[in-house]
């Protein structure tokens, strides 16, 4: 399955949007955190897991989804949220904890919920899988269209929830796709020290479902595999599992010293940064030229800056609002 030019540009644009967002968050996050790094300080306090490098997973999958389809993402959710079409203003405002945020600042960066595009994420490893299965069940029972996609990390593939959810989805033949973003790390622990198989797509056969693999963080490889898996799901042929070799260009979270990384790894990964690579690919096939690229990048930056401004200019909810929304 090959993307159309429009799809190619959509993917590229969303990669650029996402990356620029992360770069800006990185800067803003550090405000108030120098010279002494204290997570509690600055306009964006708390943990921050950046998605730099993992954009191909998000765009290659979400290119096939409509707002009606369901996505559950992880503690590292920004790129996926951007590609799923989460309201950018409200999302950035949520990351800043503002009243105008997706949930008024109650959730923060690990808890982004946008019901309008059926997006959610969570801070617990493997927690999104069950809900994706359930959303797919809901669609099947209601006879409504819709596919659910659960994103997870390679580390998450060793959680019990992974096994239970894949089995349940397979037994009930539900329209779900499980997408593993294999960045080779779970915080400081390398994949080979935590995962008994080199590739998790091999685990699909334990559920009698297709297992697919995308090497080298390849945008169009993701697009192709995800397209197949999502089409299968839409046609009622049940779940699939995809593992994507991707790269975590940043630390696990902001403030990570990354001493555990083998020397040179980071530089190597940066040289394979998927965004300049895909840009070059698009230039090579003529889907993009320098001018249209510059325009696209500028538009993306403008959009992100607007969202940041929106967030910065928004107010916080009054503190007592903490007591609200516990119950519907």
């Amino acid at each position: 399955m090959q993307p159309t030019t429009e799809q190619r540009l959509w993917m590229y644009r969303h990669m650029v949007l996402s990356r620029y967002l992360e770069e800006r968050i990185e800067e803003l996050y550090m405000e108030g955190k120098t010279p002494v790094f204290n997570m509690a300080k600055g306009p964006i306090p708390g943990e921050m897991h950046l998605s730099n490098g993992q954009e191909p997973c998000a765009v290659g999958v979400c290119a096939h989804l409509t707002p009606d389809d369901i996505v559950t993402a992880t503690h590292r959710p920004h790129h996926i949220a951007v590609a799923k079409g989460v309201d950018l203003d409200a999302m950035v405002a949520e990351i800043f904890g503002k009243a105008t945020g997706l949930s008024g600042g109650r959730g923060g960066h690990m808890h982004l919920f946008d019901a309008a595009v059926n997006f959610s994420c969570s801070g617990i490893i493997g927690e999104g899988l069950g809900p994706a299965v359930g959303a797919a069940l809901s669609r099947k029972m209601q006879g409504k269209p819709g596919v659910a996609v659960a994103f997870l990390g390679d580390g998450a593939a060793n959680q019990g929830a992974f096994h239970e959810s894949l089995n349940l989805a397979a037994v009930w033949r539900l329209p779900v796709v499980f997408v593993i973003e294999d960045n080779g790390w779970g915080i400081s622990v390398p994949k080979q020290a935590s995962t008994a198989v080199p590739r998790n797509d091999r685990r699909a056969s334990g559920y009698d479902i297709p297992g697919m693999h995308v090497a080298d963080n390849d945008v169009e490889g993701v697009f192709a595999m995800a397209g197949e898996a999502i089409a299968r799901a839409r046609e009622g042929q049940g779940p699939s599992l995809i593992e994507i070799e991707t790269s975590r260009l940043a630390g696990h979270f902001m403030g990570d010293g990354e001493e555990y990384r083998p020397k040179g790894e980071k530089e190597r990964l940066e040289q394979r940064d998927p965004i300049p690579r895909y840009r070059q690919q698009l230039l090579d096939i003529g889907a993009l030229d320098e001018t249209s690229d510059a325009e696209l990048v500028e538009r993306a930056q403008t959009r992100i800056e607007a969202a940041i401004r929106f967030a910065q200019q928004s107010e916080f909810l009054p503190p007592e609002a903490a007591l609200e929304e516990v119950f519907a």
Partner: protein
Amino acid sequence: MTTTSKSTSRKLTIARAMAEAMAQEMRLDPRVFVMGEDVGPLGGVFGNTRGLFEEFGAERVRDTPISETAFIGAAVGAASDGMRPIVELMFVDFFGVCMDAIYNLMAKNTYFSGGKVKVPLVLMTSTGGGYSDAGQHSQCLYGTFAHLPGMKVVAPSNAYDAKGLMTAAIRDDNPVVFMYHKSLQGMGWLGTEKGATVPVPEESYTVEIGKAAVVREGHDVTLASLAAGVHHCLRAAKILEEGGFSAEVVDLRSLVPLDRETLRESVAKTGRLIVVDEDYHSYGVSGEIIASVAEYSGCRLKAAPQRVAYPDIPIPFAPTMEQWALPNADKVVAAFHEMMKENRGENS
């Protein structure tokens, strides 16, 4: 919404009352469905889904794999997508394999979404011992669930409340943990607490979640409990009556929200409090109930409050040990007499 008419004299067990509430809601609302282990053709190990599979079929009454994390997580996903699942965790003792899905997901998604995602889900689960099922199949764990915010927690003592609370729970837009005590289910093989099988109207009705009931009035002491404990209290009240004392029995019915008003009013009247709780003694329901009264300066106690709770030990298998450790009416009576030895004067 609460109907108190008990026009009918038809008695139901709690198991049947639960099933009836579910069936009625399933007829009304196609979004309601049931899932869990052995809830299908078997009708639930504790009988509470009997007849549902036959009436609604395998799509809406779904047997699951033994994968509590996945299917409770799935219920949250379905509930957030517009369905109204009723999920069964067969024994509350199993919560440890799936508590993340329950408390980090089910109980928090509404808050995390700023109220935009609703999780209308009923998690029903069996509690309690007394029939020698040992330490992994006999616990109550009321305190464990009630402690964690974001979910309502109810525990009926009789079939009337069970039906009304189940209907209310299904209609609630929030997650409700429905804890049913095995000794009250009316399944012969688990023994039967007669007082739990009471007249239940055929028509649908709700019992408001969050309201305690004064199930017996009295003025010398308040006996506060829930589920099976209510029956111990009622028996104790009878014994005390024979001795010339008048005990008020408060059936909490709901732990979250907790009806502290009814409780405090009762204790303000009686001046004495005994909490009866089959859950572990420390850091649980009994402590909370006592604290809720003690911290309320409107209650002047005539004696230090007491609790008759399960000791802080795993539940032993041997019936001799288990029965000895469980709360019962005699222990409540003894606690009362102990209390009467203390003389604080009228306003202590």
